[in-house]
């Protein structure tokens, strides 16, 4: 009997539990995360929660450590350099051992290696019979365009030149997208690229083999916590089956489907799993509704708190001037912190996701409310204040019945300012996985896809506008009629 209960309890918890899949905010990370989300959705009974578009390796890694996400796709080079802070490249086993000491584990490589690569046009390679990077020595008068970063990094061009003993004279630094245009128009012959860049397929380029092993490996792996592997052994087994299933070529193709064919990540993933009939490309409208609601939730909750904290602080500040100066200075200081930085500062305290975003929005919303409450009270005619006193009104009643109503126009305009700012700042919440309309903007930025960016930007602009009109209406209801007569 006991065993039966234990068993049913175990099966209940394991079947009802949710797995949260994370991704960073660039195309390849989105595509792969969605491929694995669908793999688990199709083959297990777990609920899959998607937290995509996390901003940068640091935030995503922290999200994993803090159990806000269960796994995401990372690169061996990034793990050893950024997380393990190793200067020398480590082997796969060395990285795995170090990860295990930190309670983390990675899957075997998924197949492709997304490292720096040198690319030439296929026709050009044929002409000079180029396969390896060393073969470039055969080409006379080679014209080269490298990105600024690659040109200047100690482990970039300077080291490459040394290793392969190149003596190029026609070499320029330029923007990545310009370099692609330049090679397309035959203005240059050789550029640096990421080996799984979608443009490689589109422009019919080939990457040359790094025959002297100059570039460090950036093998894609699934990074997770050891406790996740223990709790979901079957899921982990399913993930391990995907070892070596995505080649460089396949990955380039997947990226191209997103960036060039403009398919949605859902569509690409379902095509990957062989579902041709998928209509998941039409998900955007459903998403729009979901993100709009999330956005409104973030703005509304944070505004509520900002008002309940900000108005009393404004009142206290007005009554005790010394404290008022401190309150105003502090809230002003918060305002000078760039919003994205504020979100990042709060991560150690509140982790990633909604709570963090809401707290950042509350802090951001305080200044206009405090300042306007303070200024509104300050602007009351001293004679009226004295008049209220002379009638024998007690301080609290004087505040509630006379002073706050008299300052109501300014207090409400502060709240309105905060609400409108919040609609804007809340778009940044997507960078830390708190959802909202910013999700479209982050995705669109990753895909360099203007329509997707607009899908987030236009509704949030409309939302700001509606908030404005909503407050005009609230003004109409709340501001005492006698104050509106001029």
């Amino acid at each position, binding site marked *: 009997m006991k065993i039966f209960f234990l068993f049913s309890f175990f099966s209940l918890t394991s079947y009802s539990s949710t797995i949260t899949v994370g991704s960073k905010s660039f195309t390849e990370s989105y595509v792969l995360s969605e491929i694995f989300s669908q793999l688990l959705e199709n083959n297990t009974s777990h609920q899959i929660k998607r937290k995509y578009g996390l901003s940068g390796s640091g935030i995503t890694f922290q999200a994993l450590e803090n159990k806000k996400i269960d796994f995401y796709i990372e690169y061996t080079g990034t793990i050893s350099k950024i997380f393990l802070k190793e200067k020398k490249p480590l082997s796969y086993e060395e990285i795995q051992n170090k990860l295990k000491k930190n309670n983390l584990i990675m899957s075997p490589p998924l197949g492709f290696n997304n490292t720096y690569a040198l690319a030439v046009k296929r026709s050009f390679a044929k002409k000079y019979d180029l396969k390896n990077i060393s073969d470039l020595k055969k080409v006379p008068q080679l014209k080269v365009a490298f990105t600024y970063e690659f040109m200047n990094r100690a482990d970039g061009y300077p080291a490459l030149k040394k290793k392969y003993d190149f003596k190029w004279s026609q070499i320029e630094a330029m923007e990545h997208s310009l370099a692609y245009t330049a090679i397309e128009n035959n203005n240059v012959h050789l550029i640096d690229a990421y080996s799984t860049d979608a443009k490689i397929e589109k422009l019919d380029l080939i990457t040359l083999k790094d025959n002297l092993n100059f570039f460090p490996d950036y093998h894609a792996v699934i990074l997770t916590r050891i406790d996740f592997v223990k709790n979901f052994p079957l899921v982990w087994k399913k993930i391990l089956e995907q070892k070596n299933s995505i080649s460089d070529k396949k990955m380039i193709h997947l990226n191209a489907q997103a960036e060039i064919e403009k398919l949605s990540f859902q569509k690409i993933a379902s095509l990957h799993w062989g579902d041709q009939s998928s209509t998941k490309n039409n998900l955007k409208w459903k998403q729009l509704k979901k993100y709009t609601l999330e956005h409104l939730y973030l703005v509304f909750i944070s505004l509520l708190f900002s008002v309940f904290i900000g108005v009393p602080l404004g009142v206290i500040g007005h009554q005790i001037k010394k404290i008022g100066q401190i309150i105003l200075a502090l809230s002003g200081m918060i305002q000078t912190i760039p919003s994205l930085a504020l979100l990042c500062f709060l991560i150690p305290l509140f982790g990633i996701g909604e709570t963090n975003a809401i707290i950042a929005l509350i802090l951001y919303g305080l200044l206009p409310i405090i300042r306007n409450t303070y200024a509104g009270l300050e602007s009351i005619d001293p004679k009226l204040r*004295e008049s209220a006193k002379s*009638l*024998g009104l007690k301080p609290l009643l004087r505040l509630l019945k006379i002073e706050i109503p*008299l300052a109501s126009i300014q207090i409400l305009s502060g709240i309105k300012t905060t609400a409108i700012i919040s609609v804007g700042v809340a778009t940044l919440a997507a960078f830390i996985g708190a959802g909202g309309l910013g999700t479209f903007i982050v995705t669109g930025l990753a895909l360099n896809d203007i329509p997707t960016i607009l899908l987030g930007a236009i509704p949030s602009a409309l939302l700001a506008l509606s908030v404005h009109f909503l407050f005009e209406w609230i003004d109409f209801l709340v501001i005492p*009629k006698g104050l509106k007569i*001029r």
Partner: protein
Amino acid sequence: MINIESLNFKIKGHSILKQINVQWETEKTHVLIGSSGCGKSTLIRLILGLLPIQSGTIHLGDLVVQQKKQNIIAKKVGYVIQDGGLFPHLSARKNVELVLKIHEITGKEQKNRIEKLLHDLNLNPRIMDLYPRQLSGGQKQRVALMRALAHDPEYLFFDEPLSALDPMIRSELQKHLKSIFEKLKKTVVLVTHDMGEAAYFAHTITLMNQGKIIQHSPYDEFFKNPQDPFVSEFINAQRQPPELTL
């Protein structure tokens, strides 16, 4: 009886009132006069308990005035300032009701009181639903007077209540005020800087200059018997219209 003894008041070391001694009798109208900045408004605010007493004493009847007793003082006094001091977010009626509520006059009693005041002050009930910003200067002062009288205080204080009004309305309101003072038998202290107004209302006149009382005497004596060159100077400074030669 309002009795002030050895009252001094300083702001940041600067003397605003110096050694004020004065008695104002019950049910009479006392005019406090002097050029602006002479300390007369400060004196009123001290009596109302709006400022702390630093040295000396003020008695309102048998009540010793102290700032912390402001709510007890409020029961005994009504106060009208230059443009009325009505709260712009409340209608005229709500302004009056607010005072009645503070003094716990509610329900039917409140309604009766408002009706009686409207009658006494000869006010059109329709203006009670207007907001202060919709009222003319004269209407504002009448409503302010109504608010000051609402809880039937013993003492009324007016701080230049008519100086912002145009002459026609002003003289009409002066007449009206005087008849009300006589009818209701209140002890009134009226601050003004207008000699004519002082002469019209006063049982006694108190002239202040630079924080000191220069002369305090019954009305007729004040004009017949100036005790200080400043008094004559002050009386004569009020320019009369030039005599017309026909």
